[in-house]
């Protein structure tokens, strides 16, 4: 007999977790869903964001979310630089996808190993006033360390959605994701637009990384668990749709949470990946369709 309040708490935790997962995935929805760039190294940028938050927080005591937001422009520039390399090495040459994949795979790996060399394999965490206390509604617990990242994530999603829909550059990004030729005819340079978009995608990693280290202590190899999650959510959400991605993130969050609660955390990594396999096998267009 399943304990009802345990189950409900698991679902609530899953929803909060899912909200956070949306922050993690939004970058890939932009780079892969919209720009067709197979950036599987996104988790490495998120880990970088986490460790940057860790350094500044542990040395200066500044709030991690603030760090994430302030560092976002730096990550934006980093993303633009990464895109330049990618563009000259691959897009211009029209190389086969294996080399592009290998490039990002190498980047992911180098990122992780570099972090290990600098920080070692110990878990790192941040300090903030909202890590620890929880809100209580009856038997439902809402840990602030999960609630706040979830809210920040939703905020970031909303801001990006507005940006893409209302600003010129945002709409140019949407256009380039649908039709490169049309964009060229509109006298906008596709690769310039893509560069900005990729920069934005990496900027989200700065915030996502800060949120991550609030939710849980991090160590360099955690990034790997996120590859599957990110792509599972991206595919589930239909690749380009923000609402779809959010729904997918919530779904995975809930399933992971319930699995961890009732079957133990050692099974959790398999959940997202298992979901991914199932989605790819049954409905590659995602739950809300393309």
């Amino acid at each position, binding site marked *: 007999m399943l304990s009802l309040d345990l189950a409900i708490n698991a679902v609530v935790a899953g929803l909060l977790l899912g909200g956070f997962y949306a922050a993690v995935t939004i970058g890939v929805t932009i780079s*892969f869903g919209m720009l067709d760039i*197979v950036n*599987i190294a996104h988790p490495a940028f998120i880990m970088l964001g986490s460790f940057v938050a860790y350094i500044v927080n542990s040395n200066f005591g500044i709030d991690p979310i603030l760090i994430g937001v302030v560092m976002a422009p730096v990550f934006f520039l980093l993303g633009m630089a990464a895109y330049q*390399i990618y563009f000259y*090495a691959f897009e211009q040459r029209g*190389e*086969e*996808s*294996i*080399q592009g*994949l*290998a*490039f990002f*795979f*190498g*980047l992911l*790996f*180098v990122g992780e*190993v*570099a972090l*290990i*060399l600098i920080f070692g394999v110990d878990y790192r965490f941040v300090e903030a006033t909202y890590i620890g206390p929880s809100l209580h509604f009856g038997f439902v617990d809402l840990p602030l360390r999960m609630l706040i990242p979830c809210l920040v994530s939703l905020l970031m999603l909303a801001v990006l959605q507005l940006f893409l829909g209302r600003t010129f550059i945002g709409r140019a990004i949407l256009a380039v994701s649908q039709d490169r030729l049309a964009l060229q005819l509109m006298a906008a340079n596709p690769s310039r637009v893509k560069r900005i978009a990729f920069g934005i995608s990496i900027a989200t990693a700065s915030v996502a990384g800060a949120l991550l280290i609030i939710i849980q202590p991090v160590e360099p190899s955690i990034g*790997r*668990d996120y*590859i*599957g999650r990110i*792509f*599972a959510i991206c*595919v589930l959400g239909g690749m380009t749709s923000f609402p779809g991605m959010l729904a997918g993130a919530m779904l995975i969050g809930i399933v992971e949470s319930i699995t961890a609660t009732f079957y133990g955390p*050692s*099974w959790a*990594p*398999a959940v997202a*990946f*298992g979901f*991914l*396999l199932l989605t*790819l*096998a049954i409905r*590659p267009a995602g739950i809300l369709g393309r």
Partner: protein
Amino acid sequence: MGTGTFWGVSLFVAIALLVLTRGLIANEYFFFAGYVVLQYIVLATAWNILGGYTGYTNFGVGAFFAVGAYSSVVLHKLTSVPVPVMILVGGLISGILGFGMGYLTLRLKGVFFAIATLALAIVAQTLIVNWDYVGGSRGIYVIRPQQAPLLGSYVQYLYSLMLVLAWAAVAIARTIERSRLGLGFNAIRDDEAAAEAGGVPTLRLKLIATSLSGALMGMSGAPLPYYVTYLDPASSFNLSYAVNSVAMPLIGGMTSWIGPVIGAVLLGTIQQLATVTISSALNLLIVGLLLIAFVIIAPNGIVGLVQARRRARLR
């Protein structure tokens, strides 16, 4: 050189290498390191059959390798069989896993296929981590038999087996390269729709590629428990196997059997030296950086560079 001749010549080279190294080299460490390099020749060659020849990037190398290792653990616990039998069994089970993976991922292309392979690896690792019979996450100790079947130490014996396996893998790769199967693989890589329209049974060939590649990887992992004597999921499923299996063919050259061999010998040796002289984490960094550098500067690998220079000289 015809296929039959190649098998003969390469066998001769392999036996010569075996006799020379075992006869002349006294330093035990050579065989420890040599085992690893030969193991990577098999892994890189196996990866390249699916990756370089057929165009499907497999990131789940760790799964096939570890399944081979763990199948040996199970056999070791159940009964006592010679290591060559374990190699065959490991190959069979990993081959079936490869077939299953191919079947599940039939409709996936490019990055979706690659991520799916990674997903499979995580799922496989999670299953092993939760399987107490083989030690779960704590790992398991494996005791080597007292007596090595041939002359010399047990490690020398494992080294010899791996040399034979490497020879077989290379000969198989080259045979495929020159056969109709290899042409079919290349056609799938270059344009799958056109291959299918041209009469190539793409689904069947892809299943052959995933099964064969998986089987060879499993075979390379089968002797591992006796080599390391302590096996745990974290190290046997390690992502470094995937990175190396991608980096070695890419740096060596993905279009020919010799590319993975060059890449494996080069990177494998560098890593063995680096692990001893610097830290092992730094050596992984070197592999990753070399991978990135080569993929940007010389995407066709060393073989590609040599071919380009040859073409330039002809003009």
